[in-house]
């Protein structure tokens, strides 16, 4: 199945692209997606999986990133074990505020 990973804000610079389309086995979960991102796609080094979340480090204190699957925060789903569907859109966000 195909899923789309969309990094936002400065994660776009980190990834160098606005979206990554990945081919995953049926019923893969977020953890497996991150693994594929890491091994096959070569996820940027500044991104790391630790303590059950995706971490960004770059001169700042390491911070957890927000992962949304189809608009839902994985915290409200099954965390890294959230299962993905075909066509799922996974959005990655750094912390932000404003408005």
């Amino acid at each position: 199945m195909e899923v789309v990973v969309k990094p936002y804000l400065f994660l776009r610079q980190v990834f160098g692209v606005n979206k990554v389309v990945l081919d995953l086995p049926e019923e893969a979960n977020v953890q497996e997606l991150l693994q594929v991102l890491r091994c096959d796609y070569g996820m940027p080094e500044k991104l790391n999986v630790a303590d059950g979340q995706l971490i960004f480090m770059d001169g700042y204190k390491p911070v957890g990133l927000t992962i949304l699957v189809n608009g839902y925060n994985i915290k409200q789903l099954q965390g890294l074990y959230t299962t993905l569907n075909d066509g799922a859109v996974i959005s990655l966000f750094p912390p932000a505020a404003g408005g």
Partner: protein
Amino acid sequence: MYGCHGKLLRVDLSNSKVNEEEIPESMHRKYLGGAGLATRYLWDEVPKGAAPLGPENKLIFMAGSLTGVVAPSTGRFSIVAKSPQTGIWGQANSGGRWGVDFKRCGYDGIIFEGASSKPVYLVVEDNKAELKDASHLWGKNVPETTGLLKDELGEKFNVACIGQAGENLVKYAAVMNDLGRAAGRCGLGAVMGSKNLKAIAVRGSIKTPVSNPEELKVHSKKQYELMDEAMLKMAMQAFGTTVVLDLVSVRGGFPTRNWQSGVFEYSDDINGPAISDNILTKNITCFACPIECGRGTEISKGKYAGHKGEGPEYETVGTFGGMCFINDLEAITMAGYLCNDYGIDTISAGNTIAFAMECYEKGILTDSDTGGIAINFGDPDVIVDLVHLIARREGVGDLLAEGTMRMSQKLGQDSEDFAMHVKGLELPAYDSRAVQMTGLTYATANRGGDHITAYVQGPTFVDAPFLMIEDSEIKDPFVADPSEVKVAVDLEDMLTTFDCVGACKFMGLCLNADDWVKLVNLVTGWDFDTAEYKQAGERVYNLARAFSNREGLTAEGDTLPKRLLEEPLPDGPAEGHVNELSILLDKYYQLRGWDEQTGKPTAEKLRELSLDDIAAEIWS
């Protein structure tokens, strides 16, 4: 007294008199200064039923207790009056430098009363103030007025003023300062216009006495360092307030086509990175703020090429962009510049135009009403043209200048159902069908449909917990959970203190409460613990509510537009959702200690907050 001068100016515009007056110390601590103190004066001095645009209303400027001291992001001031938009308590807050420059004149605030028979401005300098003729400034926009006053008085003077919108009593006119900063909400620019007061020019050199300057320096440095490390700062510095657009959009809560949808397919054309890539020339910051979220911009292509200014902020992009279905960043930016120049609140303006677009689409507003202008969704020229017309109240602009509530009352034909305001104040660009708790906070915000009263968008839409309250976690934003209502109440109380002490709420996201309260104590010499400090916020919150109750607000007013309550979102992650306000509202009243029938704070609650005299009056 520390953190303040203990003095305010009372300006009787009807009789051209300026007097100095002391502020009792007890009052300062009780209401924390700034918006809180101003609200107490409003309660005491503006009689029930006063016409918002009549001489009985008062316009109260108040700097905060921390305004201008060495502490991060503390350059703000508030303006309080009865609002012409809502008819209840009105408050607007602004950053920049003006608040600091004003406080350096040796005063904490100004109460304007009565109305002048001819245009005037007030000039304030070290311990003195004088009213002057402003006939030559009337009819001028904000940059022109600011420029002329600087020519006249000296470059060092800082100016807060209204543009033509305030003069023409546009219901949502703003008071502008530092050219591009706005005390935008509640139409206080119209109150200023109704008093024939064009501007306040200030320059001063008097320092605010601080209780413990040595320790403050050390403690404050630590706070700066903490902020410097915060990723949040980095994101806002890079992309301004519009940094949140993508997060709101991905959750399906970015109001589109006057809230007919929550998904705007062109959001990449107008988001934070689009602004940085296309128009950003420099960051602009407020006094002592390392976040620098302001955008100095220049339009480099298209028909508005060459225009420069400040913004757009997220709300400007949200209202003129998504709500009006426009993905032309240059046109949105231009509309924002014009709002700054004329002195107009962009949230209300963009929202009102989007409402007009839907009315036009539905045939409720016809070519004969609009003078032949086709007010279509997605037409970038229309938003720019309409801002001109609104500010001048020309043609259909005269109708739009009244705002969505009055327009819908006039137009009828069920247009009230999609007039997106609460209590007359147009809603900001977060759809509360996508985040349930935002609906509650729109319905209960003291000044009407507002997002920054509780900023519950932080822990929901943008996933930024608010460190200053014990627990700001909202587990699932799509679910209305009464057990989480306390988060909204806590946020309202805590954030109220920010408008009192003169600090920026964005900075509040980065720091913890005990550190913050310590900083407040070091400046003011007070001995608050965190709970007592927060309770002072609750006191002010209830006082403002009581003012509105006295003006006739009841529980009935705490509601949302029908569209949010009954029309499910048609697409996106929140597809099928409406806002389930009623599930949350009962709990809210209970936690607040407000009477469910009348919507008034109970006498018991008011007494608990040492507001016995208020209790006696609203329950008499």
